């Protein structure tokens, strides 16, 4: 199931683990990414904490943790090659996997239709 935040993160839920990335819309706004800093595996974050940093040629931006949870895996491929986020933001350009503290919190996030309306 695909969910979205108003801050332009996407989450793909598999049980209580969410794969998290930034949306195609967010990537279009950021432009060419040249640097990605990911969180440490095992670290816990609350919703809206700064979890990752992305930098385009021009500017740095924070990626927020979309829900409370613990990082279980990060995508080192985008650290080695940040352009993967530009070329496939909602696929190979994922950022991290997050074990949700409360699975039901995900219900409050946007579904695809609501997110599309937000960015329209």
């Amino acid at each position: 199931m695909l969910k979205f935040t108003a801050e332009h993160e996407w989450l793909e839920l598999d049980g209580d683990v969410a794969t998290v990335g930034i949306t195609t819309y967010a990537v279009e706004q950021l432009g060419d990414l040249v640097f990605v800093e990911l969180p440490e595996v095992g670290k816990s974050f609350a919703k809206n904490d700064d979890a990752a940093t992305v930098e385009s040629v021009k500017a740095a931006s924070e990626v927020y943790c979309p829900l409370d949870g613990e990082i279980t895996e990060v995508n080192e491929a985008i650290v080695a090659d940040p352009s993967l986020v530009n070329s496939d933001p909602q696929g190979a350009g994922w950022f991290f996997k997050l074990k949700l503290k409360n699975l039901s919190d995900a219900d409050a996030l946007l579904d695809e239709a609501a997110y599309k309306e937000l960015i329209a």
Partner: protein
Amino acid sequence: MDDTAALKKTPLHALHLSLGARMVPFAGYDMPVQYPAGVMKEHLHTRSEAGLFDVSHMGQIIVKAKSGSYEDAALALESLVPVDILGLAEGRQRYGFFTDDTGGILDDLMITHVDDHLFVVVNAACKEADLAHLQANIGDQCDITLLNRALIALQGPRAVEVLAELWADVAAMKFMDVRHCRLHDISCLVSRSGYSGEDGFEISVPVDKAEDVAMRLLEHPDVQAIGLGARDSLRLEAGLCLYGNDIDTTTSPVEAVLEWAMQKARRGNGARAGGFPGSGRILSELENGASRRRVGLKPEGKAPVRGHAKLYADAEGKVEIGEVTSGGFGPSVEGPVAMGYVPVSHSAVGTLVYAEVRGKFLPVSVSTLPFVTPTYKR
């Protein structure tokens, strides 16, 4: 009121929109920051082919002596800049800056000897202040006129071949030469200069013909429109100062390592030494050195270090020594690049300093400028 409605538009505004530019407010103008290709591709295209930039927001000013003599105009302008203007040959351009009484920099500018007058290009954000400054200080001797013209920059290794298709004589021009020309019957003033570190041209064009000239250049397969994003990364790699970031009223020309722009005639024992605002400090710094210097900074890791990042002598961030003034990712360098000010004690190439980025202290080595080798045709 709608903020964007208050923004001024250049004569190429409609063209930018038709090319799919993303527009941003810059120095009071609605300007293209990037086109659909993106900053990275635009930057690399300029270094390998040719990029077209709209720099019409900059101020184009004529300084003409009321007497009609070039010498009088040159000597009047020399009272405001530490640059040899009298010795500037007709059809030649020179970089310079207005200084203030404390030796700080009010703006940087390009100064050209055209016929019997001076043609001066200044920064968009400073142009009203520059006009007032000129008017107040030399307005009794000179007529100061802000031109309503467009300015188009064509930069990159293919620029000369492209422009030669409109005007063959351009190939004979050398770096910093300036010529009147007709591009398809459009009367233009062309200089072989720019701010990308590449060979290239700036073309001053009548407003009503600007789109025509820009379109003719863009029709060439080697030319792409380039936005402010790539303009900034190109000039940073070229080690060129951006007014308001790398130089301002708190930085002196010697601190900024702009000695090369102050010719012998205006220095200590020169024919027309001093006589410009802040000359006491600037001449003393030319003689004895400044206590801090602008340097190139090469972050050792992959993280860009941006303007305003603090610089430290130690990896623990105990001894603050300076600040980054411009920084980002250099697409041609394929890594982060920056410039900033450090004490002379830390200014030698290879010195390791530390920049604070998100609470971490990242190693950064003092580097030679520019980061790319310029391809000017001297």
